[in-house]
């Protein structure tokens, strides 16, 4: 075997994201002593926990060669619905969990139906669903955020309130580690193992790698594509519930910005350690990158409306790297 020539691009491709995270963190810690404290670091992780849930969902849809634009709306939907279960209808654990989860599964199934059965291109089908689900969540909440003691349409005050066990999911701590951070680590670990070490995970990648070859290899491709869309919606839905638990209200339209962050995280994740394909661990690193950037910018007192510029630039850069690499690979 000959020694492989060192390529700067390959090196940057593999370790660039991690390097950027380290550099940005160093810069921020130099400008602000508070940045590199345990409190702030857990704060960053807490702030990205929800995006990570949604981004892992997007990762699943990317793995089977699809795309799910409706995740942001699904976040909004389950945020509002889980809040309303407690605040409007005084429901307990069962309804507060089951109904939003069932709704997100339903969104996933409809997505899969449109993309897999009717064969609408994924971007267009899920774009339509983005609006449909968003409209449903607006109609359901009548455009108001849901919080304890909110005034109801008939003039009375909302009967219920956010339950403490629910809030614990978003705000609690175990051994001074925030619960949402623990949940995020759990989800990353479980989905990573699922995708890397199980047959189903492998089949998802094969389906996305070459749909027709997968079908002709006896893989039930439609089942796996459906599974990916359902999981995508499920993780987005769980993210939405976590969001309600963290801020303690059912914020209306709260998932809107989530789509962008999640997609950026998933595409940044393509390149992490040279994976070259969508992967959960990379997605998590991508989410951390975005979290660190946002946290640092907050500390630098940048106006929040400038954040989108940074996030968009991160996405464009990640896409540029991903597609440049793809082109290089094709050429070889």
């Amino acid at each position, binding site marked *: *075997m*000959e020694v492989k*020539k060192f390529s700067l691009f390959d090196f940057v491709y593999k370790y660039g994201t991690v390097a950027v995270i380290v550099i940005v963190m160093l810069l921020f810690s130099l400008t602000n002593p508070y940045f590199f404290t345990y409190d702030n670091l857990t704060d960053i992780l807490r702030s990205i926990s929800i995006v990570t849930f949604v981004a892992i969902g997007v990762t699943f849809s990317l793995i089977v060669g699809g795309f799910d634009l409706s995740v942001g709306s699904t976040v909004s939907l389950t945020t509002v619905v889980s809040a309303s279960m407690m605040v409007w209808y005084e429901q307990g654990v069962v309804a507060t969990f089951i109904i939003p989860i069932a709704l997100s599964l339903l969104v996933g199934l409809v997505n899969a139906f449109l993309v897999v059965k009717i064969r609408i291109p994924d971007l267009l089908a899920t774009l339509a669903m983005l609006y449909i689900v968003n409209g449903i969540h607006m109609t359901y909440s009548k455009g108001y955020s849901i919080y304890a003691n909110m005034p109801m349409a008939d003039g009375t005050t909302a009967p219920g309130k956010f339950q403490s066990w629910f809030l614990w999911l978003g705000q609690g701590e175990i051994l001074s580690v925030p619960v949402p951070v623990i949940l995020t680590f759990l989800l990353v670990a479980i989905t990573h193992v699922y995708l890397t*070490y*199980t*047959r*189903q995970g*492998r*089949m998802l*990648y*094969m389906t996305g*790698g*070459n749909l*027709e*070859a*997968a*079908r*002709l*290899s*006896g*893989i*039930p491709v439609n089942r796996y594509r459906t599974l990916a869309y359902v999981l995508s919606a499920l993780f987005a839905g769980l993210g939405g519930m976590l969001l309600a638990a963290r801020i303690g209200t059912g914020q209306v339209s709260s998932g809107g910005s989530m789509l962008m962050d999640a997609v950026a995280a998933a595409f940044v994740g393509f390149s992490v350690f040279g994976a*070259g*394909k969508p992967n959960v661990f990379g997605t998590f690193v991508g989410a951390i990158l975005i979290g660190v950037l946002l946290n640092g910018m907050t500390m630098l007192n940048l106006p929040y409306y400038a954040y989108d510029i940074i996030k968009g630039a991160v996405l464009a850069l990640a896409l540029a790297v991903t597609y440049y690499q793809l082109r290089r*690979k094709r050429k*070889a």
Partner: protein
Amino acid sequence: MKGIVKHFSGVPALQSVQFEVKAGEVHALLGANGAGKSTLMKILTGAYQADEGSISIDGHDVAIRSPQDAKALGIQCVYQEVDTALIPYLSVAENILLDQLVSSKKKGLVNWQSLYAESEKILQGFGFSIPVKMLVEQCTLSEKQLILIARATVQQAKYVIFDEPTAPLSTKESERLFQIIAQLKSAGVGIIYISHRLPEIFEICDRITIMRDGQGVITTETTATSMDEVISHMLGKSFAEEFPKVEVPIGEPILEVQGIAGAKVHGVDVRVREGEIVGVVGLVGAGKTELARLLFGADPKESGEIRLKGKPVRMSSPKDAVDAGIVLVPEERRKEGIFVEESVKNNLSVATLANWSPLGFIRKGIESRQAKDLVQKLGVKTADIGQLVGFLSGGNQQKVAIGKWVNTNASIFMFDEPTKGVDIGAKSDIYRLIGTLAEQKKGILYFSCEFQEVIGIADRILVMFEGKIVKELSRGQATQEQIMYYASGGE
């Protein structure tokens, strides 16, 4: 072209290659896959840059730095992958006159009437009948190729490269292509002809250049050589026997198909017994691929019954077929047979994972062992099992596409044109592998339009014509002429 040298990331692909074409000559460029033919042609057409060496036309050195340069010098190429050169959403006429449309000095609106009339005239000049207003995406593979040829010739080409032009064509269409080549030749065009099919090379080419391992081995007049000599130059060793046919006792029937019908297949009966290799031959468009896909559940069947070991099987997807024990190595290797972005190991394990992943977890040790074992058994040339299949040569990719089925418990193996675009060395590996499967009492269905190949390996030959089996011939009885007679509709 003189002293052409090209390296890919340090690995030499071409080592000081000489090549020349005279005006009005058909010059064959031959070589096994990976010999450097495509690389050399890509340098000529400006897709790649040579590291060293020079290209001259009519005695003047020229620099070809881009495909535009090559076109400006009158070098045209009819590519093997026709889809990459055509625009599917545009009409036949627009595609033929594409370069004129692009470089037209005339401003303003497109004159559709003259566009259609002109392209119609060009097609008629060759004796093609393709509706010029049809969209290219609705054309068949051979129509697309004819469009490409038409496009190349309208531009006053001085040199035309044909890269495996007859691969998708039927015999009739090939013959028409040869007429076109003769027309071009008499018009003084220099033609470079790349093909794996030796008989046609000897039919139409004036000279032959053979390449091996990135070097030119020999350039000779066609009349001064023979097929055996050409093959031995390509392989670099004498070619003992092309079809290592193993005699296997034939056992009980495994697959019995009655009156199966679907798109382009109209009521076909097939029977395959243990250890038997049944060849299904026919010209392109006879319905062979369609029959294979029907038997594999890949396309919906309209009627008919499939029995496996006496029991009727119901197949609504390839998964059902695989579960029942029928597997297919499809025709379009890169599109249907392999996962180019996945490793050799992952490609080889895709069909058998379920057998040794009881709790859904992949046993990576078993997977690697199986992959190494298969790589050795099939003679796949790869650095290691982690290599991406996209980087392998065509023949090795095909071995991987076959290899994924070897360890399944399938009883019927179907091969659809398994040697298409595969070099001779890999071809005999594939024949041997099929023989081994027959020895293991598997039933083999071998779909091919290479008559000689089927005569060489099959126990029984079914000739297809227009979606029906028109003749059954046994081994030893069939000749190429006979097959051709029935395959082209003779009674």
